[in-house]
């Protein structure tokens, strides 16, 4: 009969009107059941979190901190491959308890806040250390440069987890302290960054 191909064609055509996710869900249904694929809950840095840096000039050490930063942390020691860090740092919030130094720090030869207001640290690769700590093999985007900066941290799990981490980076790789400030005899290249994140559930 002439009707049979017509009905079949209509039947196939109707499939096209199914919502796309229904297709995807149907296709992925067996895989989604495996726990390894489920996204980890995301935590956000809450009150009490700190992000500080330490350096020295002409033999006198100083410490500074960022009062404005936001860390989004998805981390599970048992599921490092699903873990993710995403941290945004407002550079203009850098404070070393000295107005003159802070003005220099925000200026063109250091953080150049006028050109790019934020730095961003992202990590998707993690490894466990024998002493129970972890390393995030992340990247820091700062001042137009993007460089690998490993962050070593201790993870204190629980309902309100804490992350205590430290990283060492080379300021000149990020064009921080250029021009006459690049004199390493006066100001070392290596800067130690320390953070404590007091985490709360995101949203």
């Amino acid at each position: 009969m002439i009707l049979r191909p017509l009905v079949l064609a209509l039947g196939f055509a109707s499939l096209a009107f199914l919502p796309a996710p229904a297709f995807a869900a149907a296709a992925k249904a067996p895989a989604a059941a495996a726990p390894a694929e489920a996204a980890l809950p995301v935590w956000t840095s809450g009150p009490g979190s700190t992000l500080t840096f330490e350096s020295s000039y002409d033999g006198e050490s100083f410490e500074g901190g960022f009062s404005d930063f936001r860390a989004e942390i998805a981390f599970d020691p048992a599921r490092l491959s699903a873990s993710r860090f995403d941290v945004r740092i407002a550079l203009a919030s850098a404070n070393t308890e000295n107005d003159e130094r802070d003005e220099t720090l925000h200026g063109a030869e250091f953080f150049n806040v006028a050109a790019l207001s934020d730095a961003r640290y992202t990590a998707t690769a993690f490894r466990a250390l024998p002493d129970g700590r972890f390393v995030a093999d992340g990247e820091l985007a700062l001042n137009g440069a993007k460089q690998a900066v490993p962050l070593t941290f201790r993870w204190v799990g629980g309902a309100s987890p804490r992350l205590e981490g430290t990283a060492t980076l080379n300021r000149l790789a990020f064009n921080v302290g250029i021009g006459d400030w690049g004199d390493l005899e006066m100001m070392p290249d290596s800067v130690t960054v320390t953070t404590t994140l007091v985490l709360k559930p995101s949203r």
Partner: protein
Amino acid sequence: MPFRNTSERWGSLSIALHWLTVVLLLSQVAVGLTMESLPNTPFKRDVYLLHKSFGLTVLGLTALRLGWRFFQSTPALPADTGRAQRFAARFSHGAMYFLLIAIPASGWTFNWASNFSTPWFGLTVMERAGSVNREVKAAAGEAHEWGVYVLLALLLVHAGAAFWHHYRLKDRVLWRMAPWLRPPV
């Protein structure tokens, strides 16, 4: 020239400290009025370190001058100097000594309230405070600046009076502080 002051003239130490203070003061004012507008470079920091170091030096030298003055006589004013003029001389000298202490001291306070350590030619005289104190900083900054303007005004009166004595009254008031000048008859 005697080392100590006499009732007739200033001794060599008083003369040396006086003129050293003049040179330091004028250089400090010149540098102090221009250094703020320098770009934020290590050079600016070096200029500030020197301004602070020389300022502390002025403070120390002024303390030394006052101490030296306290323990001996000072040359007498000419016998025909009137009461009002004696008072003006006393008052302006006292005010200048006060400002030569107060201006460096307010600068030091400004530096302390800004949370800088106190330098003296590479030495650290005082560690930094640990935090910024903005109210103290603003007040000390104002005092430092206005103190300089008042001192410069007094300096004009002081130098004007000295020239008046030397060229109009033709007495030895300036000569005994500047003995390389030809003494008036």
